[in-house]
């Protein structure tokens, strides 16, 4: 429809689930997670690596002022490409988010968005389309049932890791504009390298005592 090629996210298992093999510029991607410490933003930061590699900045709109850049740096992000926007009020945050999405100079815009009526999300989607940016919206899992203007809606659920080699998460596509939703994959983020590998849910659990500690 828009003729823009799909950008691979760098997470092969996620690309395999997406119908076009990647994310399109000018669209919104919703990362849903329930509760705290679920791991969705870690995956989002890894997925943003590939998009910013072709030029453009990663703009993080952080209204609550909790974003911690050393974690992003440890995941391999280049801090020169990150711009942190810390508005004081939620209204300012929404304005900043829209302005950043509208700017072609930003490759990916990351923001935590708890509640927003659908009209607001539509505005953001139009802004992303104008600017050709990819918007990563981190949202609570409760919005799962609501209709959405985002191109892709992903649900990230933490899994108890049975190996100390990495962190396990389940990635599910709830909704995808072109193609069918419903694909899911279990991935593991390696503790040493930060790379994301798919794991079979039936992988045998090795005993913790024998493996080397992280």
């Amino acid at each position, binding site marked *: 429809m828009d003729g823009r090629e799909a950008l691979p996210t760098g997470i092969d298992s996620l690309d395999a689930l997406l119908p076009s093999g990647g994310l399109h510029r000018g669209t919104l991607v919703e990362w849903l*997670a329930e*509760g*705290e*410490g*679920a*791991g*969705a*933003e*870690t995956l989002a*930061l890894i997925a943003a690596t590939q998009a910013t590699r072709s*030029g*453009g*900045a990663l*703009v993080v709109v952080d209204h609550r*002022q*909790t*974003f*911690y*850049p*050393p*974690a*992003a*740096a*440890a*995941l*391999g992000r280049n*801090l*020169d490409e*990150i*711009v*942190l*926007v*810390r*508005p*004081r009020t939620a209204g300012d945050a929404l*304005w*900043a988010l829209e*302005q950043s999405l509208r*700017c*072609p*100079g*930003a490759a990916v815009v990351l923001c935590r968005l708890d509640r927003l009526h659908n009209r607001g999300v539509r505005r953001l989607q139009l802004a992303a389309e104008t600017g050709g940016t990819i918007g990563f919206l981190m949202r609570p899992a409760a919005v799962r049932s609501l209709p959405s203007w985002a191109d892709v809606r992903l649900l990230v*659920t*933490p*899994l*108890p*890791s049975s190996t*100390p080699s990495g*962190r*396990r*998460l389940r990635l599910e596509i709830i909704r995808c504009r072109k193609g069918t939703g419903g694909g899911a994959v279990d991935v593991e*983020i*390696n*503790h*040493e*390298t*930060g790379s994301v590998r798919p794991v079979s849910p039936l992988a045998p659990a090795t005993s*913790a005592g024998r493996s080397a*500690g*992280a």
Partner: protein
Amino acid sequence: MVLYDRARRGGFCVVTCTPEAERAGVRPGLPLAEARALLAGIPHARYERHDPQADREALRELAARCQCFSPYVGIEQAEAPESLLLDLDGVAHLFGDEPGLAAQLVKAFKRKGYRVRVAVADTIGAAWAVAHFDPASGLRPVVVPPGESGHALGSLPVKALRLPGTVLDQLHTLGLDQIGQVLALPRAGLPSRFGPVLLERLDQATGRLGETFVPHRPAEPVEAEWPLEHPTADRRVLEGVCRELLGRIVAKLSARREGVLRLWCCLETVKPCEPVNVSVELIEPRACLRDLRELLRLRLDRITLSAEVCRVHLLVTQTAGIPCHQRELFDIGQERQRRRELARLLDRLSSRLGAQAVLRPRICPDHQPEYAVRFRPVVWADKPDQKKRSAQRVCRMALPLSRPVRLQPRPVAVEVMAVIPDGPPVRFTWKGRSYAVERWWGPERIATGWWRIRDVQRDYYRVETEEGRRFWLFREVREEDWFLHGTFE
């Protein structure tokens, strides 16, 4: 440190270098690859592209500083000016005498980190020649006594006369290498042999012909103001006034081919209220009227007017030259376009949210996690960070999942239940939810030195709950209290 630029034959060659590099054998004109090979043993060698525009700006700034020594300061007329000319008529006695003035000049420049060669003489030509080519001027300022210019010039090479290359070649083939030899020749024959230039320069140097220079005048500040006949607090009127004033400012600046970097707007209100000051800071110099209007409007939207405004005054406090980009035939300037758009976005965000709200993170080599990162507003000019490389190295040593993506602004106390010996709590409660710890990594002892007023000693644990959620907890060693510092979102 080596500055390089494109050579005529293609490739890069050295333009100039520091004495350290010179000692290693690097000379102007050397191909860059050779220079790199010569300096391979020096680890901190830096190579930067030569920027003549920046040189000229710096020279203009120095000329402005020299105003305290002489009312007339000029920059030499040359393609790549390197010298400043000061007229010392009637000024020397204020500093004692001429050698005293020269010594103070050297000291003033040394304080700024510059090495200078100073020469004082009757004429511009003589002073230039002595400063550039007299070996003594490198050690201390040389003062040529009045009337003895000819004598001082005698032993200097002919290059010191500022002659074009063709004339120099001719003199060289004839074996005339020193000015003294040229002075000895009969004057009448010189113009026909070498052209009028040689005689002109000789006369200028000896004082027969007068030479003047154009004194450098610091640019007058660009400002515009508008007194309102009927004081008003109506936003639309003020916006219109600002539009008109910005138009005038942009017109003045575009003649100079400069853009606004910092703009200051003062709204004087009807007494007894204080005037309202607003400032707009930009990342890149901009002269586009539409952009400036929008940025000013965004700033003014944030202020509340308590009284009516009777005068609007706009002053440009900082400008910078706008480099002209030659459009390439196939416009591969997409990268540049993107960067420009990003700069526009950041200006807009800084204008409305404040400069402290749009930041670039910088890793600091500090153990305490709250201080391990410093934020710098994007509108503050970026200085090349030498420590950046070492700091990035510090963070790359950290494992990918070792630091939480989200850090609480302040560590939050959590209620714990039963602690594993030498480990984290078995259960803890946070935000009304209870978590059972299944796996944990640690402890990571983070302690700051006693010299810090509020020093900390913490044992950090990365815990994973039975659901798979991960948190960053720590125990304050001295008080034995447990806190949650971050979440691995």
